[in-house]
């Protein structure tokens, strides 16, 4: 302590007696800096929330119209003679189109909008190919001939987009699909109530359509495809993930091999998903010759991708079960295996389940690996008929279907892509809500 005594002498007297009530300039400056800094934080939060709002708004605004379609409802009465006559002609659908135009005109007259003259060309542009739809109906249901039938025919997707504001008259000046004059007719049809908005069930239940028919595209088949993939992921990733976690958490000795596994898992969790796609392509398709575009392959790839997530969360829930539980079980003579399977695992189950659901939700939204195993080039035009065909037959998946739509040239498909996102997000929201519910309900604090 020699230096302390040596140093005490030359000390200048400390600044004393400064008031703490009045702020000096330095403090004022510092407090201003403090305010500024805090504002930066608030701005950052604000930007984050703003992006969330912007994202939600643009999804809802652009996606909701995908769930409705504009349709014309026409009362139709076709006699046997008319049917025979039409079937005898060379251009059969054109004949039916004629019937439709006449029925539509009659409907308009009835609604008091008789001044509107509809002609076949305009109807063809507004409604698309109605003739074939009507013909197919009557050929399949000949007993309906001579009876009053109410037809609801969807309008073309451009009319749809015009009515919900996505398309303006100016955009149509050079369009060969729809002429500005047609829009006058559309306006009158809407005014008279012949044309109306209706919920589009085809979008939910339907399958993908060709590139020329955005109105008929639906996401149903790819929902089923996603469902089959999730089935594979659940069946494989849950047991394997839980088994691996139990080994690592409860039995693994501290050695190089265990370290190797752990390092592997934490690295796999951060490997880009596209690399898993490459793995799937090389191993499952090129090497093991599994079918391309099959939900089974997609499921396998997503399983490998989800495993690290599930293992990490399962280990966390196993770790949160206090050691005293294990000690108690071992104390009454249970084997280590029995202690784990009879006591620790049931107590960790809610946490494991939550982690698994969140892992599944991640897998459900994953797109990149699916591109490589061919789930994008394929157009989901049919439903699978049974478990085996669901797993092995080519299908699409929700995110892949959305990508397919987004990559098509016709902007009418963008609306479908946004709508698909809404469907996807509804599923994700449901899964996450379920996970939160389970966590709240079963959460245990030791």
């Amino acid at each position, binding site marked *: 302590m020699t230096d302390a005594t040596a140093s005490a002498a030359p000390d200048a007297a400390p600044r004393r007696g400064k008031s703490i009530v009045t702020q000096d300039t330095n403090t004022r400056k510092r407090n201003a800096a403090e305010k500024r800094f805090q504002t930066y934080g608030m701005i950052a*939060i604000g930007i984050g929330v703003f992006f*969330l709002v912007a994202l939600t708004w*643009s999804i809802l605004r652009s996606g909701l119209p995908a769930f409705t379609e504009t349709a014309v409802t026409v009362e139709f009465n076709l006699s046997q003679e008319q049917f025979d006559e039409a079937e005898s002609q060379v251009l059969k659908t054109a004949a039916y189109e004629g019937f439709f135009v006449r029925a539509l005109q009659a409907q308009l007259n009835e609604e008091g909008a008789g001044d509107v003259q509809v002609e076949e060309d305009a109807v063809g542009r507004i409604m698309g190919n109605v003739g074939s739809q009507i013909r197919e109906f009557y050929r399949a249901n000949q007993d309906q001939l001579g009876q009053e039938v109410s037809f609801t025919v969807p309008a073309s997707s451009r009319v749809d987009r015009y009515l919900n504001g996505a398309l303006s008259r100016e955009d149509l000046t050079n369009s060969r699909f729809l002429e500005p004059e047609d829009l006058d007719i559309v306006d009158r049809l809407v005014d008279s109530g012949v044309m109306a908005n209706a919920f589009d069930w085809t979008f939910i239940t339907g399958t993908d359509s060709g590139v020329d028919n955005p109105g008929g595209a639906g996401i149903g088949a790819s929902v089923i495809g996603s469902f089959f993939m999730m089935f594979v992921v659940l069946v494989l990733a849950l*047991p394997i993930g839980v088994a*691996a976690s139990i080994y690592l958490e409860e039995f693994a000795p501290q050695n190089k091999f265990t370290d190797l*596994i752990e390092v592997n898992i934490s690295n796999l969790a951060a490997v*880009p998903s596209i690399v898993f796609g490459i793995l799937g392509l090389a191993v499952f398709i090129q090497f093991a010759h599994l079918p391309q575009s099959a939900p089974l392959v997609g499921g396998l790839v997503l399983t490998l991708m989800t495993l690290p997530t599930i293992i990490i969360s399962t280990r966390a829930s196993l770790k949160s079960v206090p050691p005293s539980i294990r000690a108690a079980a071992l104390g009454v003579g249970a084997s280590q295996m029995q202690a784990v399977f009879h006591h620790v695992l049931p107590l960790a189950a809610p946490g494991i389940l939550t982690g698994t659901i969140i892992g599944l939700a991640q897998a459900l939204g994953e797109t990149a690996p699916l*591109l490589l195993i061919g789930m994008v080039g394929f157009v989901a035009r049919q439903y699978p008929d049974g478990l085996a065909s669901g797993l092995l037959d080519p299908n699409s998946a929700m995110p892949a279907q959305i990508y397919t739509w987004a990559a098509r040239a016709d902007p009418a498909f963008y609306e479908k892509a946004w709508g698909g996102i809404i469907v996807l997000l509804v599923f994700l929201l449901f899964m996450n809500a379920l996970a939160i519910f389970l966590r709240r309900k079963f959460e245990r604090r030791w």
Partner: protein
Amino acid sequence: MSTTLVVLIVLALGAAGYVLGRGRALREVNGDQRRLHSLPSYYGTNVAMKTVVPAMLLMGIWLLAQPLIVETSVRGDLQDEAERQNRSVSLMMSDVRRVANGLDVAVSQGVMTRERASNMRTEFTDVRERLGQAGVALGSDVTSAVLRAAQRYRAISGRADLLRTGVVLALALAGLAFGLRNSTAGYRARNVVESGIKILLILAACIAILTTIGIVLSLVFNTIEFFRLYPASEFFFSTTWSPSFGGGSELGIIPLLWGTLYISVIALIVAVPIGLFAAIYLSEYASKRTRAIAKPAIEILAGIPTIVYGLFALLTIGPLLLRVFGDQTVGWMDAGTAVMTAGLAMGIMLIPFVSSLSDDIINAVPQSMRDGSYGLGATQSETIRQVILPAALPGIVGAILLAASRAIGETMIVVLGAGAAARLSLNPFEAMTTVTAKIVSQLTGDSDFRSAEALVAFALGMTLFVVTLALNVAALYIVRKYREQYE
């Protein structure tokens, strides 16, 4: 016999083994289970395990190995033919496989009899047409060598299938008998079952290693194949990327790396300050209520699939930027897809990632540091800037590295938002493309998997894997060291 049927038979044998094993052990002690070493169910499980597990493992390995063995034997026959036609063996092999599959389909649909499929000659039959009838489309006419190889392929496969079924079932039965013989009263069934389960657990844990090995092998082999067709020096140092499937492609990775880097840097410039400040605000300033609302709101951004961000970039951000920087104003931008578009969308995606990692790291700085600083009369922001952030710096650097690795590996946003042109340009409003986007486009085309234009995707994947792995390992190391410091 189909694989499914074999599996079902083995499972049925396993179930029978359970009942028999349990019964045998109980009979031996006249139903008094107290005289058994283990509970009766363990004796049953023991037998079932010995019946099912080895048989299934053998079948799995066999199923993986069989195509390899069959191919090597068929490949030998094709060697001369390939040299004569000046085609690569692997290319011919894929033809052989396709024809063989086609024949299988044709037989199963009854278009062709089994004998016809095995004896058919190209000299007498138009194989392509016949297979077309069965709904199997072939790209080119079938040469006689290919057809013969395909027929041999089928013959060997058929024999191998038969042999497999026999061996698997025999192994299952042997396991059953062995297990039953052991089911005596003094047998330590529980210990045996438990060590069996433990082996299964270890196998499950090894899947992680297998996955890594699978990734590395599939990348390495295909990359080597690619470098055989295309010089490595060109790949790494050429500044032009212009693949053409007709040949004469230039496949330089530099423009792709540039695009990747550029987009990632923009994404990080957006995400790091916003994420970091959001984390600081949430952990140091926000009231409980603000935190309860703002934290989940930002975390929702993390749960949104990347395809959504991709679409957001393509259809919302792109057109918006085009309106601000497009031809009508300053004319920097020609189309909605650009480095900026993808970079912004990716930045938004990374905000919650950066913010939740930083939040953890900032909270790991011990309270005593804060106390020390406040005790000296520092304001909160001085404490954060001069004490907490420097203390948390290694952790934050780790978090940024992880975010960078995410950005580099991100696919959907760049596929949809960045454009397709490989360019070396400084203008952030120009379309550029990235490593991941090109992996997708090279592998989803209709090209032959064996061409340099498709194989380059694996070399790109290898580069991507190595870069992200290095970033991850570095980040995890830094973060771990950081955490140990305060534990």
